[in-house]
């Protein structure tokens, strides 16, 4: 190795770090690295709660990421007697 190469050498780890940051930004977008399901569930629950009283346990959100198709399954069990909506209709 020449002198300049020796002085400027920082090893291969910084390259590894940069490659990982770029790759994982893509993969997280593709596979959804986040608590997306949790967030969705909370927001769906909030929307429904505006209109009827609902048990938090009765909202199920599942996401299945496949190669070609991904599905989002939302399963909401409604109370037998729809409670009065929290929002009055004008």
């Amino acid at each position: 190795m020449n002198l300049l190469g020796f002085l400027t050498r920082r090893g291969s780890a910084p390259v590894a770090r940069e490659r990982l940051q770029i790759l994982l930004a893509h993969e997280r977008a593709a596979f959804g690295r986040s608590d997306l399901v949790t967030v969705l569930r909370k927001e769906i629950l909030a929307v429904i709660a505006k209109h009827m009283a609902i048990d938090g346990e009765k909202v199920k959100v599942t996401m299945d990421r496949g190669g070609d198709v991904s599905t989002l399954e939302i399963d909401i069990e409604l109370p037998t007697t729809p409670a009065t909506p929290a929002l009055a209709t004008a």
Partner: protein
Amino acid sequence: MAKVLVVTSGKGGVGKTTTTAALGAALAQQGQSVCVVDFDVGLRNLDLVMGAERRVVYDLINVVQGDAKLPQALIRDKRLDGLSLLPASQTRDKDALTDAGVARVMDELRDKFDWVICDSPAGIERGATLAMRHADVAVVVCNPEVSSVRDSDRIIGLLDAKTARAEKGEAMEKHLILTRYEPGRAERGEMLRIDDVLEILSIPLLAVVPESEEVLKASNVGSPVTLNNPASAPARAYADAVRRLKGETVAMVIPTERRSLMSKLFQRRAA
């Protein structure tokens, strides 16, 4: 009621089984009752690392399928009170593990112990998702190496999506154990540094376990490293990890390179 912990990684050969045995033994050494469960069906190894390979009669699949009762399958450690092993099957396929059967066995384990530690198989398929399914806490084992970090990232995504807790909308507690870390190589820029990995994965650090010959020595004789040589660097890192899991505040010890006197002198003069 036990806390259920899964030791997972995505990638194989990073140190999950070593970590499961070490954490299990360390918890027992600190007075807790623990069961380590081998979910690596078909490739069981936890029995070997724990030195119990000749005592396996029944396994997880037998219990899940109702062919044996849980107490018949549990192997109690001869050296450590409070430590038990539920081995995996060597011959059967993981498809013999039904979701409902695993749920029932996990409930039974929860009643019996303070801690249940599930050793996950490699991969992101059903074996790995079954192992994490009932966990309250996840320990993600990662080496400072690109493919391991990438797979850890995938596993973190699965922990937030495929576990019973995540499905109920509850937060999944996740911790990182960075293992096989070589401080000298990280300092020289040949290996990812601790803060690089932490920044990329952004989950809290539970321990940094150095690369150490003590791990091989311990597995050679079938003894968890925390039991085989409690004073060794990897054993101390695992023992501290366990204290943190129990809620104690323990200062993080980052492994440093053992430099020779000559190189220290040389560096001082150069500085």
